[in-house]
């Protein structure tokens, strides 16, 4: 299976490669170079062009897109109801962009469309890195904080916990990302439980694998 990544930084891309391989139980063929966006909402703005490029100019099977939620509305099971769309939820927004872009494209390279795999790290990808080693960090804790009006941690605090500084170099960020992904040892069950925004991209990837193998 050929997988393309649309991420916000080279460190994120390194982490996503490891996570995709862990979900699929084997490293796929990654399409390079990785596609890069300049944070939100640039990801959503760029996504249609990346999808069209991958669809017509490559034989990519899956496009993985992962963004940070920052302070936006967190995706919940209620958003998955048929026909529901939350205008301030980044998961809903990215899925809508996929849907609207791919439905207009004719088949190409022997497949109907590039398969969607969307994840949202709540509130940032550093939370995923802490999955399984810091019990206070989870999507549920963040949502509870949003509801209470007092977040349990800030994005800067998460950086401190992962990198030991809120100004990590790119090299240090990448090194830490690799270390934390290696710590999972290929087992992403806890990560999926604590972070439904990760479980969503994992589910998309597995569905894509089944489709690709059928």
């Amino acid at each position, binding site marked *: 299976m050929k997988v393309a990544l649309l991420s916000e930084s080279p460190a994120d891309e390194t982490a996503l490669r490891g996570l995709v391989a862990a979900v699929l139980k084997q490293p796929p063929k990654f399409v390079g170079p990785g596609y*890069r966006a300049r944070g939100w*909402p*640039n990801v959503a703005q760029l996504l249609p062009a990346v999808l069209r490029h991958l669809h017509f100019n490559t034989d990519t099977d899956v496009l993985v897109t992962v963004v940070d939620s920052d*302070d936006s509305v967190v995706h919940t099971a209620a958003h998955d109801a048929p026909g529901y769309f939350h205008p301030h939820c980044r998961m809903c927004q990215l899925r809508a962009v996929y849907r609207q872009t791919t439905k207009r494209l004719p088949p190409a390279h022997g497949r109907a469309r590039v398969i969607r795999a969307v994840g949202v790290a709540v509130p940032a990808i550093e939370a995923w890195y802490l999955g399984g080693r810091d019990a206070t960090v989870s999507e549920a804790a963040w949502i509870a904080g949003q509801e209470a009006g007092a977040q349990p941690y800030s994005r800067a605090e998460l950086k401190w916990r992962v990198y030991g500084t809120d100004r990590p170099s790119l*090299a240090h960020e990448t090194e830490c990302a690799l270390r934390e992904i290696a710590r999972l040892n290929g087992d992403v069950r806890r990560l999926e439980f604590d972070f439904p925004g990760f479980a969503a991209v994992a589910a998309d990837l597995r569905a894509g694998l089944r489709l690709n193998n059928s």
Partner: protein
Amino acid sequence: MDNTLNRTHVGAVIASIAFQNFKALRNTRVALTPFNLVIGPNGSGKTSLMEAMLRLRTLSKLPLSDATGIQKSGGPEIEFRFTAPHDAIVARMGCVSDVQCDTLRIEPATAPSWPALRTDIGTIRSYVLDHRAMAEAAKRSAGADLQGDGGNLAAVLFQLRANAPAAFAGLTAELLRILPEFRAIELTEAGDEHVALALRLVENGLVPAEGLSQGILYLLGVLALAFDPEPPRVLCIEEPDRGIHPRMLREIRDALYRLSYPEAFGAQRRPVQIVTSTHSPYFIDLFRDHPDEVVISQKKGRAAEFGRLSDRADLAELLREGSLGDMWFSGILGGVPEER
């Protein structure tokens, strides 16, 4: 009103600079933090800010003026305030014109810590890197400090390799990580006690400095500053992002952060206060999480004023709608050219 003026900043030397009738800086004050990225239109005082700091360095090495030495006739004046332990000292620079500042007065005149502060001020350096100068061979003995245009880059690297091999190894490792097509920095004899710079390709070819791209030379210059084992206390550098691919700008920011926040890089030395500038929205994007480090220079007619991005109350809301660079380019944040 810039409400950062009274904040203390570990690592900063200069706390604030106030300008009166100095070029476009007619009546404005800027509070400085350990790291300062100045953005604004052309002619809005970014270079003047750095020039003022260089003039402070120059005048601090000369005998001080007494109270009557300062211009009283409405000539430009620049007032410097400092961080602890020098926060009781005020330095006032008097200028005859925009291009001639020739008096410096210290208050109190007998401040006991002035000699120590003067030593720090004496290390202020300012850079506008020039790739043509950087590509030239340099006299081996002229490599103590990188020149303002980077013209002695080869000699600086030569002396770093000889005198601080660990720092040279760190610089080399960083360069090769960023540019994996190379495998070594080579410094070769160029006759008449000169040394020339070249980079060895992984596939073994040698690219002489004059064959390197502007961006690679600028990157080397910034890394030479970042890995200087005895850096200045204050460093000004104009547009360090010039010639650099947008995807590599993070590496430039990291190199400058290495100077300003050494503890974040595991280095045990005093921080360097940085004042830098850019016109690149992509570079500005990298400061989204640290708006306190961004100074916006706003030009109104022929006069310019400084303000801190972090003083913008609605910044968090704005950043939900777009990137920091896009917000700046749009004009919402100010710091854009006036149009008629």
